[in-house]
């Protein structure tokens, strides 16, 4: 279950466990030795997690045991009541939506949902939405505006599903519409990339006033594997692609694509889901409080500006 680069940490943890067991068994005092090892473990964890390569972050972002959308809905929020269906095409299990409370504030929640096991992964289509999922999100945007409920969108998808029915039902059209519709919200909107922010399928619910990202989450125009397949003509070069794409939280804050990085507990969210969710909650509460004072016009205007300015270019040098 653990990630490749976590092996030394696991080994050291095992060693500490063994030493403790041995001390108990032999009724000898190894407290100072254990403490020393514990210090070493903390340093190792810190070193490891501070210096993860981009490709390793991709692995953490996708790690089994990392909290998914539903985990947040059930634990970070209160009174979550799911609302199903887009009233048009169906009810996409890859997107979970509904009403909930965040520390007392009523909100609309939209969460992309990967599976937590194989069976759920199949049910949730690995978090890859069909057009129906985006239509469901848009229905939630309508409810949010009508009842003035802030929107919180949790992003975690490899991307919108590239399939026959999805194309027939206008996958591109609904993503474009969702981007536009979300940008027109008259209520506060916060998006959080909690795991994998995969391309347009992620952006469709990412046009928020504030875009947050977890420390080990990624947000990218294309998956490293697909990028490698196209540019290197070898999906095996995903590690290189991940480096090149600058898809980590730190990269994205530097590029001003995201507004805030939410720390994860040492060792990553998959090693401490409850801790990670608590940190996300705290960040959301702060952001919501900040946005609550803004008028609909201010929210619209600041969202417009936030996305209008994105990009890097320079004046053409005079010939």
């Amino acid at each position, binding site marked *: 279950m653990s990630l490749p680069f976590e092996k030394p940490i696991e080994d050291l943890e095992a060693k500490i466990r063994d030493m403790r067991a041995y001390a108990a068994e032999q009724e000898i005092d190894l407290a100072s030795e254990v403490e020393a090892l514990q210090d070493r473990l903390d340093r190792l964890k810190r070193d490891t997690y501070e210096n993860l390569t981009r490709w390793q972050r991709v692995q953490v972002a996708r790690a089994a045991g990392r909290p998914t959308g539903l985990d947040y809905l059930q634990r970070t929020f209160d009174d979550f009541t799911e609302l199903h269906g887009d009233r048009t095409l169906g009810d996409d299990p890859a997107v979970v939506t509904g009403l909930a409370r965040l520390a007392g504030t009523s909100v609309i929640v939209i969460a992309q949902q990967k599976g937590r096991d194989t069976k759920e992964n199949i049910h949730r289509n690995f978090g890859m939405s069909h057009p129906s999922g985006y239509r469901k999100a848009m229905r939630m945007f309508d409810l949010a505006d009508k009842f003035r409920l802030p929107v919180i969108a949790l992003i975690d998808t490899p991307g*919108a*599903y*590239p*399939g*026959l029915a*999805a*194309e*027939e*039902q*206008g*996958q*591109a*059209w609904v*993503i*474009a*519409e969702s*981007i*536009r519709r979300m*940008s*027109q919200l008259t209520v506060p909107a916060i998006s959080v990339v909690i795991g994998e922010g995969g*391309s*347009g399928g992620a*952006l*469709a619910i*990412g*046009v928020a006033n504030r875009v947050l990202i977890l420390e080990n989450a990624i*947000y*990218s*125009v*294309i998956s490293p594997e*697909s*990028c490698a397949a*196209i*540019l*290197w003509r070898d999906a095996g070069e995903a590690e*290189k*692609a991940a480096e*090149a*794409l*600058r*898809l980590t939280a730190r*990269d*994205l804050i530097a*590029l001003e*694509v995201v507004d805030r990085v939410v720390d994860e507990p040492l060792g990553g969210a998959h090693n401490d889901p409850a801790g990670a969710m608590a940190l996300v909650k705290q960040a959301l509460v702060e952001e919501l409080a900040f946005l609550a004072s803004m008028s609909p016009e201010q929210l619209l205007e600041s*969202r*417009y500006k936030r*996305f*209008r300015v*994105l*990009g*890097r*270019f*320079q*004046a*053409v040098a005079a010939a």
Partner: protein
Amino acid sequence: MALERWFRRNRPSKKEDDNSPAGLWLKCDSCGAQIYRKDLVANSYVCPECSHHHRVPADARVAMLADEGTFEVWSGLIEAQDALEFVDTQAYPERLTKARQKVGRPDAILTGGALLDGQPVALVVMDFSFLGGSMGSVVGEEIASATERAAAEGRTLIAVTSSGGARMQEGALSLMQMAKTTVALEALSRAHLPYISVLTDPTTGGVTASFATLGDVIFAEPGALISFAGPRVIQQTIRQDLPAGFQRSEFLLQKGMVDDVVDRRELRARIADVINLLRSGLAQPEEEEALRVAAL
């Protein structure tokens, strides 16, 4: 088939029979006919034999749509940065330099103001020959600023799209151009100005999934590939052959996604009609209000 064309077709010399931009003759991808380049150009780059719609250089596209002598270029004053220091088998700046040399403009976009059948428009034309028409920061900025300028100057926005999608070499910044171009359309909506988008072959990925498909009216050129995911990706996903005509304009018309499939030779007239109709509605309430106030 005109006799003159038939006559020409029977005498391609080996030297002329190439597909280089300078070649006098070329072979139609669709029907295989040898076509005299001038005939193709004179026929709006539509094969005189089989009506296959060949790709159109951006300048030629502008010439087809703008009233003669009315086009004023807006784009071209900005160029890409290598914010990611992106290197794959080639560094991004090298790719850019080559593309600029080949195409003769800073990036994959040409925008400007013009009259179209006497009506003020902003033209946004993507250039597929520049890195596959991919949308990076420059393309996004040119589109967004042309859109805002159209709103400010009371022009109808006309976008002619052709793009492989987002420009990977600009990473998440290129992804964000989808949002940037989309929010800019709001400026146009607030000014109650129409936006007509024309999808040409090929329009895929992030461009299709943003401003391209948000036209008040969407026209598609015959036979154009228009999709979110590329056909190869889908084939890999579903592991079976795609149905004939899948993701082509005519298929999308049937699926309700475009307003019409329009032959390029009629495109200008159709656009003019639509602008005419959409811009002759009743006075907007705020205009009426302004009139009322002015009358006091």
